[in-house]
């Protein structure tokens, strides 16, 4: 008996140490837990969802009241149930993109990154995990919000020229496209945060890319504008969820491809900086 107790009390450092090990799946699990253990995640995702649904409903209602009163706004000419109900995408992308920036840059501003990288000193798995976890969450929220907005919005505009149903050609593709677009914006935000290591910097660049630069292209000569415009992240994204396409926009597939290239570019830059520089 006594020998048994003695072996049990051997110092833990020499033998019988549990075999811990860092794996990709475990880093994913850690990033998943980190995301949901912050209040800002719940608030911002909730905001994104509210933006998507509420602005979709508001624009559908405005359209409907324009039809019934006979005073139709110029903006609504050629509107469809999809374009009306996905109106909130412009605002939801800000909420999701900003949360993406916070997921990475927030670790730098708080100092958490030192704990994170001391646990995973190979570093890159952290970036991939953050991008995957947050990209999927943003995709899920975007898709859910898009479908809810469409189902309620199309109910409002039924019986008007904009009316469309889920079975209408291109509608499911548009709604999934919107979810995918928001998911990729989330990944871009995550990558921008990791690249710039600053919450303010990441959000500024995100807002500039998605909202300011598309407006600035109108300053370019029209021949340039037609060549550059469609390839901007926001315009490429818009062609992913638009129902109708013309000569100045990309096809949904091409839009997705262009946006994927932008995402890969920023993510590559973020990976380079993460692997190379001190924290």
């Amino acid at each position, binding site marked *: 008996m006594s020998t048994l107790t003695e072996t049990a009390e051997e110092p833990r450092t020499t033998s019988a140490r549990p075999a811990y090990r860092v794996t990709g799946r*475990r880093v994913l699990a850690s990033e998943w837990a980190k995301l949901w*253990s*912050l209040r800002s995640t719940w608030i911002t995702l909730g905001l994104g969802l509210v933006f998507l649904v509420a602005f979709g409903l508001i624009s559908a209602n405005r359209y409907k009241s324009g039809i019934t009163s006979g005073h139709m706004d110029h903006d609504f000419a050629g509107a469809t149930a999809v374009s009306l109900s996905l109106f909130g995408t412009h605002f939801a992308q800000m909420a999701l993109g900003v949360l993406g920036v916070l997921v990475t840059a927030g670790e730098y501003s708080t100092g958490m990154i*030192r*704990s994170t*990288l*001391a646990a*995973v000193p*190979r570093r890159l798995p952290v970036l991939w995990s953050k991008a995957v976890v947050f990209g999927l969450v943003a995709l899920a929220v975007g898709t859910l919000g898009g479908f809810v907005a469409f189902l309620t919005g199309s109910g409002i505009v039924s019986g008007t020229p904009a009316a469309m149903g889920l079975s209408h050609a291109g509608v499911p593709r548009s709604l999934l496209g919107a979810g995918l677009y928001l998911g990729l914006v989330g990944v871009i935000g995550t990558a921008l945060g990791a690249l710039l290591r600053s919450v303010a910097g990441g959000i500024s660049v995100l807002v500039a890319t998605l909202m300011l630069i598309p407006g600035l292209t109108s300053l370019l000569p029209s021949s340039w504008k037609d060549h550059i415009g469609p390839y901007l992240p926001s315009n490429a994204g818009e062609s992913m969820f638009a129902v109708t396409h013309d000569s100045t926009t990309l096809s949904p597939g091409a839009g997705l491809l262009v946006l994927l290239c932008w995402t890969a570019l920023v993510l590559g830059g973020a990976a380079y900086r993460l692997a190379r520089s001190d924290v």
Partner: protein
Amino acid sequence: MIDARQLTKRYGEKTAVDGLDFVVKPGTVTGFLGPNGAGKSTTMRMIVGLDAPTRGSVTVNGHHYARHQAPLQEVGALLEAKSVHPGRSAYNHLKALALTHGIPGRRVDEVIGLAGLGSVAKKRAGAFSLGMGQRLGIAAALLGDPRTVMLDEPVNGLDPEGVLWIRNLLKGLADEGRTVFVSSHLMSEMALVADHLIIVGRGRLLADTTVADLIREAGGDTVKVVTQDPARLRDVLAGPGVDVSGRIGSEELRVTGLTAREIGLKAAEHGIALFELSARTVSLEEAFMDLTRDAVEYHGTTTGTESVGRPA
């Protein structure tokens, strides 16, 4: 076991760490001492791979930190108290770190208890006091049951009870056979816990020694004697292990190897009159300040600074 070889870190023009060579051995507490700005934190950051060395290398338990399969099981580090997201609770912070390694939940509870955080574990870390933040950092350092524990200024912000807790913790960890490496700019604190000392100044190694050796080299226990007949007293005191020094024509002698009591008795025995007999023990603090005097980065402007620790 930490092994640094020619470890160097340069930030632009400034060299923060300059060719450090040292080994930190298991089973003892090794103090890492130096004035502010001596490069202690930078060295520790390089050990866990947060900063890449400009030149040289440092390994932990035989490998570079990032090469280990379970880094938290090799080195548990407290670098800065604020390495925590203030919006996350202490429990969730530790849980997230544990998940990367597959460390079970009961170990998280264990270190929370060990660090005395039980009552605040579910509170946001941002609301923690400096001392509580420090305890959370230490809980994180111990999470992987690491073979090497490395703490940067662990007693900062702790109350006396916390300081005592840290001292006992460090000694306990060393007794279990772990490598314990602790930095401080306070010699007095280190003297109470460390057996071995690595002293740096301006990024350079100044001493790699034990506490006892450091005192001996800095002048040890000298006794100052002023007597009427220094020549005779010299002869009377002479013996193995005894060193007597003094200027010719002066009544003052400095004796090492004998206590003041022994000198007094011998002088009385031979009827030699003594005017003064005083033991001058060099404190560790003085020895440390002597060593780092030229390496102090930021001198105070108080006129007294220059004479502290080196009686004329």
